[in-house]
């Protein structure tokens, strides 16, 4: 099967709506078909990967742990909008330390998150075969 470049655009905060969870499900499906998958977090989507989520009090499942599994599915590129973080008073230090393991370097852990400008995101999006927005 031909490999295509898929980018998933995540724009919604988790828990209030089902978009974040649904996106994650579809991301894992595409990765299982060995496609070239990357994720972008923009607008309130940046809250999906904030460290320290605890939805116990609202009776929901903490699916933020699943983002840690993305590296095992060979998803190494998580782009985060610098502008979206800044508007919300957040920085990369507020995000989960997500990593992937590099087979060629004795499985060394490398950071998956890259903070990029919206201009850089524009360019990344134009390189894709498919962009799916959630």
């Amino acid at each position: 099967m031909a490999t295509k470049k898929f980018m998933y655009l995540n724009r919604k905060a988790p828990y209030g709506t089902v978009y974040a969870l649904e996106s994650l499900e579809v991301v894992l499906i595409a990765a299982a078909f060995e496609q070239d998958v990357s994720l972008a977090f923009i607008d309130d989507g940046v809250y999906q990967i904030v460290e320290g989520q605890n939805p116990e009090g609202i009776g929901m499942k903490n699916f933020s742990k699943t983002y840690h599994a993305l590296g095992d599915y060979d998803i190494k590129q998580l782009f985060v909008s610098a502008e979206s973080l800044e508007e919300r008073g957040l920085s990369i230090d507020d995000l989960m330390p997500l990593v992937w393991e590099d087979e060629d370097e004795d499985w060394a852990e490398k950071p998956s998150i890259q903070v990029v400008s919206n201009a850089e995101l524009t360019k990344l999006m134009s390189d894709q075969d498919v962009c799916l927005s959630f």
Partner: protein
Amino acid sequence: MLHTVNKSSFERNSLQSCLNTIDDSSVILLIEDGVISAAKNTKSPMLADLAAQGRVFALQGDVEARGISSKVADNIKLVDYAGFVDLVVEHGTAVSWL
């Protein structure tokens, strides 16, 4: 009156509409994605004024779910579900800004 807001102010104008029509004795409770507006640096001077008067609340479970407990502005009071009920009892008519 009690006004509840359940949308992020980055996403919808629900909070702004609420602020535009609120009277001097009403209070605001931020719930669900509305708690995102309780974080510092979300740039709503009017919400900050109301918070300084002790008239802004946020639902603790929703704040904790989103991992923003340490980001909540100082004057915004966190309440649990029992506190939500108390606010309803105390302030009578409730308006939901969806």
